[in-house]
């Protein structure tokens, strides 16, 4: 499952909080994406299902906002015309054509880079929180 971690406190940045959580839980965490600016840092991590609760709780204890990402990429099927513009830009191969040239979406692969959101001419894709 993917978690969105958000921290505002810059003090936290001085402690290796992600490493601490990994060591304490032994969870094999994958960092899908990291966005750091002057105000906040957003991290999207992929956590094995059985460790999700524990990892989330620990991050919260350390003062990090944790949100479970149930919807990684929102696809408005009624707006989609199956043009395929999203296929070649997606770094992880979320979109594919089925044999009748309909788009299929493998959401689990999404790392929320948002490239497809701009690339979809129909505005049928969105990264919602």
């Amino acid at each position, binding site marked *: 499952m993917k978690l969105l971690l958000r921290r505002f406190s810059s003090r936290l940045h001085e402690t290796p909080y992600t490493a601490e959580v990994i060591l304490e839980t032994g969870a094999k965490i994958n960092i899908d994406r990291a966005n750091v600016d002057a105000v906040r840092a957003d991290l999207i991590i992929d956590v094995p299902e059985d460790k999700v609760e524990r990892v989330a709780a620990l991050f919260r204890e350390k003062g990090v906002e944790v949100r479970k990402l149930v919807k990684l990429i929102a696809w408005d099927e009624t707006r989609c015309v199956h043009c395929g*513009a999203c296929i070649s830009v997606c770094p992880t191969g979320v979109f594919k054509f089925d044999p009748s040239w309909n788009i299929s979406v493998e959401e689990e692969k999404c790392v929320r880079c948002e490239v497809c959101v*701009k690339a979809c001419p129909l505005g049928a894709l969105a990264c919602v929180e």
Partner: protein
Amino acid sequence: MRNKSIEEINEKIVDGSVHVVTADKMSEIVSELGVEEAAKEVDVVTTGTFGPMCSSGVFINFGHADPPIKMKRVWLNDVEAYTGIAAVDAYLGATQPSEDKGAEYGGGYVIEDLVAGKPIEMKAIGYGTDCYPRKEIGTTITLEDLNQAMMLNPRNSSQRYVVATNSTDRTLYTYMGTLLPNYRNANYCGAGALSPLFNDPDFETIGVGTRIFLSGAGGYVIGEGTQHNPVNSFGTLMVAGNLKEMSAEFLKGATFYGYGVTLYVGIGIPIPVLNEGIARKTGISDGDIVTEVLDYGVSRRDRPVLRRVTYEELKSGLIEIEGKEVPTSPLSSFYMASKIAAELKRGLEAGKFLLSLPVERLPTDTVFKPMKQTKELPLVKDVMTREVKTISERASIGDAAKLIMETQITHIPVISKESKLVGIVTAWDISTAVAKRHEDLAEIMTRKVMTADPEEPLELVIRKLEKYNISALPVIDKDRKVIGMITSDEISKLIGKRGKWQWRLRI
């Protein structure tokens, strides 16, 4: 085989015995049965395409208000339509952006909303004349309230499109979609073997007056499209149809990020199989259709051709460019194109759609000429400073500071032993370096330098300066030797400057 006539086929359509196949099936039939049998068997081949067609729009008549107005300007949901025609006539173009939302909304979206039956806010200002005294009006209209809404698209259904890719190290946002850096993707367009014009490349049956499927309604080909270039397999059509009969399923407003608004239009054309020649041509398959891959990293009219490629390769999802496997995306929809060809087939089989004989043939010998430019743009080499001060990468920061002070030049290109450009250093870099106590120039210079080519038009350099907010570019030759500098100060001295970063060429 005896040739068939359109009248005979129409009789079969009326009595329900007509044999119609979609263009993708026709290639299979021709390769299985051969041309002769296929020509006997099949009466009509239906084609279809559904893609972004910028050159589209609608002629609208609003009816007269009381007191009446002769419109000077009119807006529909804040999107301006052209009113340089009669008092309450206007042409709404698909690519016109909204005044307040920019490219998020525009003409294409208004057309879709009209067809979907949504209410549209209309406002207009008038000239105020004796016969049309009113100077302003605001109202809400729907498609039903309009007297006429005639779709008239100057260029649709292009036969062929090029494939776009990008050699530069920056993402480009184009009318061919998002192009990732370093050939990471390639975008194409067009319906391949289903494409109307590839099934009748010599315009034997498609001509002025040919009845077509236009976004859910019956429409007509009214002439050659703009940029019609049949000699190079870039034929196009001008088409018209009644917007009131169209369906929002086949008309979608869309936005190409960074480029603008457009409209997805659906077109289907029935090709009567009158003889063996036509049967053979409609037997075309994706493997027979060749197009070119162009590098959109080059902002010139004649972009370099990287390779030739078939639609079969493109549709496989991966093509090879410069030794790399590159994923491809179509921007038009094969799913919708097939749906249109199938819908047209059903209409013919149900006797609801009759074929028409063109009243005039379209030209087959024209080409698309470039614009005649009477005022040539200056090139970089015409305006660059040729006396350039450079500094060696092994120099110290002190040397660079001295050079900047002596010459009053704020941007100094840094060069290697072989005199090749390796970086640039600015007065600003020097002051931060001093503050941070750096000593070597190589440590503080910017290595990723944006450069200009001596043969590049000045206009493109101005765009680079503006886009990346920089004020000077080294001009380099093929060996990366610095042969000049071009700065925003000099450009503004030369061509004048209005407002910050607002350049107007005074030539």
